[in-house]
């Protein structure tokens, strides 16, 4: 225990000044300075101007759509991601290793490719779009299409946060529960699920955060109709194309604020889930 204390205090290893200096300089030039530029641009607006740019009905509709669709997509991922993680860890079946490797596809596949692919798949003449259209459901160019694309984008997050927790889980608590007379279902809901809670919530938040900023896949599938299928990142791009820099900066500042809050929340969640995970 004492060694942990000592290990943290060491400055005996060389290179601290050099590496920290490089890190800080690089981050300042590449990340901090441009971010400051954005915030300054938004700050150059008066409050009324800012509201006029960032809180127009069109912008409000875009926020609603972005956050609403992201929330639904993250929820879908939480449910199915849990099932996928469970199946991958607990069962052996043919093709498991392939599935295991493919789960990360949405992260590796460029979003533009995902966008045109999902659109083609779900358009009225697409493999899935045609039968769905026959059933009276249109997916492409509707908010539903946006949810589908965001679900694809966020798919790995819940799986990859829940999976290691499941792998580490020792069977003794489940065995104890069974010995105490609980049914398997009751063991799962009362013993296993609560242990997965923090990781599940972390995965959900990660998927949500990623979805709120998504752009590449959405531009193709959403149809981009203002007030109906226009997401916030797209609104920023549109304002930029109209050379409305201040307006773009205002909307971007709102989104940036949300991202930042999510980032902090995720940091906390991960510490929390790390703590419960270790304690378990």
């Amino acid at each position: 225990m004492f060694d942990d204390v000592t290990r943290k205090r060491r400055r005996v290893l060389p290179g601290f000044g050099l590496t920290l200096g490089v890190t800080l300089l690089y981050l300042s030039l590449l990340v901090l300075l441009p971010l400051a530029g954005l915030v300054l641009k938004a700050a150059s607006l008066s409050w009324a101007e800012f509201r006029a740019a960032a809180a127009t009905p069109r912008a409000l509709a875009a926020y609603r759509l972005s956050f609403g669709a992201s929330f639904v997509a993250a929820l879908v991922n939480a449910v199915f991601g849990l099932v996928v993680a469970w199946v991958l860890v607990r069962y052996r079946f043919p093709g498991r290793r392939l599935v295991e490797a493919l789960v990360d596809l949405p992260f590796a596949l460029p979003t533009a490719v995902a966008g045109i692919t999902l659109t083609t798949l779900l358009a009225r003449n697409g493999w899935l779009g045609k039968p769905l259209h026959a059933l009276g459901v249109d997916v492409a160019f509707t908010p539903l299409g946006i949810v589908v694309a965001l679900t694809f984008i966020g798919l790995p997050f819940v799986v990859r946060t829940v999976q290691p927790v499941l792998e580490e889980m020792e069977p003794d608590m489940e065995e104890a529960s069974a010995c105490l007379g609980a049914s398997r279902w009751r063991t799962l809901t009362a013993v296993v699920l609560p242990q997965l809670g923090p990781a599940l919530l972390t995965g959900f938040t990660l998927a949500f955060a990623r979805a709120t900023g998504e752009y590449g896949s959405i531009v193709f599938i959403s149809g981009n109709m203002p007030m109906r299928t226009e997401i916030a990142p797209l609104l920023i791009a549109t304002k930029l194309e109209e050379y409305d820099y201040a307006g773009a900066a205002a909307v971007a500042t709102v989104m940036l604020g949300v991202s930042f809050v999510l980032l902090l929340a995720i940091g906390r969640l991960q510490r929390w889930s790390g703590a419960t995970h270790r304690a378990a």
Partner: protein
Amino acid sequence: MGIVISRPGRAERAVSAAPGIRVERLTKRFGAFTAVDDVSFDIPAGELVAMLGPSGGGKSTILRIIAGLEQADGGSVWLDGLGVDHLPPRERRVGFVFQHYALFRHMTVEENIGYALRVRRVGCAERRERVAELVALMGLHGLERRYPSQLSGGQRQRVALARSLAARPRLLLLDEPFAAVDARVREELRHWLRRLHDEVHVTSIFVTHDQEEAFALADRVLLIHDGRLEQDGSPLEILDDPATEFVARFIGDVNVLDGVVRAGEATVGALRVPVARVTAVPPGERVPVRLVIRSYDLKFWRAEDGGVATVRRVITLGDRVRVEAMVDQAGPLFAQFPRRSSLLHGVAPGVRIGIEVTAARAYPLAPGARPAVPVQHREPRRTFA
């Protein structure tokens, strides 16, 4: 096949007054926590010294400071008369065997052993020769091309030892060197280390929380507790003349009883001990003391009439027998006897007995001190690994 240790360079020889290591008033704090508190000692060249104490007492920190892996907040370290406080670890010429060995997992055994020479740009031929020498010394034949993950715990330990000796350090530091191997291998490794030291004679300090290990191996023991040096002496001195109550309690299986010293006699309830048999009796008319009595410094006999205690339990532990007796007007007392000892005749639960204390140690009880935990019932400290 001797290994020449510590050939001091010309510059060093100039200031090298006292070979060996000197630690002066070393202090190290981590925030509000004082890990090392004003520790000083001297170790002449060639000694094998154990740093003994409970886990978390600051032993490892002292070792790391000597190696330069940690900066002290105060005090200084002298190696062969040379102040090394401002030298980085690589210039101190100290060998360090880490608790979990820290072998380079991507290097073979011989690459590990030769590393210190490689980074010093020692020529290939010389390096090869030195590695072969150490492989022979450590009995690592046939393992040269293996990776650490392919070795047993004991083999890793020997590789770590060989690696630390390659550059002929003037001082060898071993941090809990036997904690990570199982009991059987540990025994074997102890013999190794002792033999190695007899052969190589490098000044060595090893950290351990196992007193048996310290006594079995070391010429001298530094007892460290709560960052302080409690006692510095030979194993026998520590055993027979513990400097503090902590040392007395730490070493061996002891009874701790509160009593009074008065008129040539120490009294604990009905139990009386002639003061001549009690060391470190404080002067004074009537002094409250804490008596520390080892379980093997007791004699029991069956007392038909009277007696001072009643036997409660008799437990046979292999070659020894442990007897628990209740002293009248005091607490329980434990004694240990060899299995077939004549002292055990007639000793059985419920029997009244007389007790003779053959040796005890007294420590004055500060007014308001917490009463002694009535029973110190525990096995001698062994490794917890």
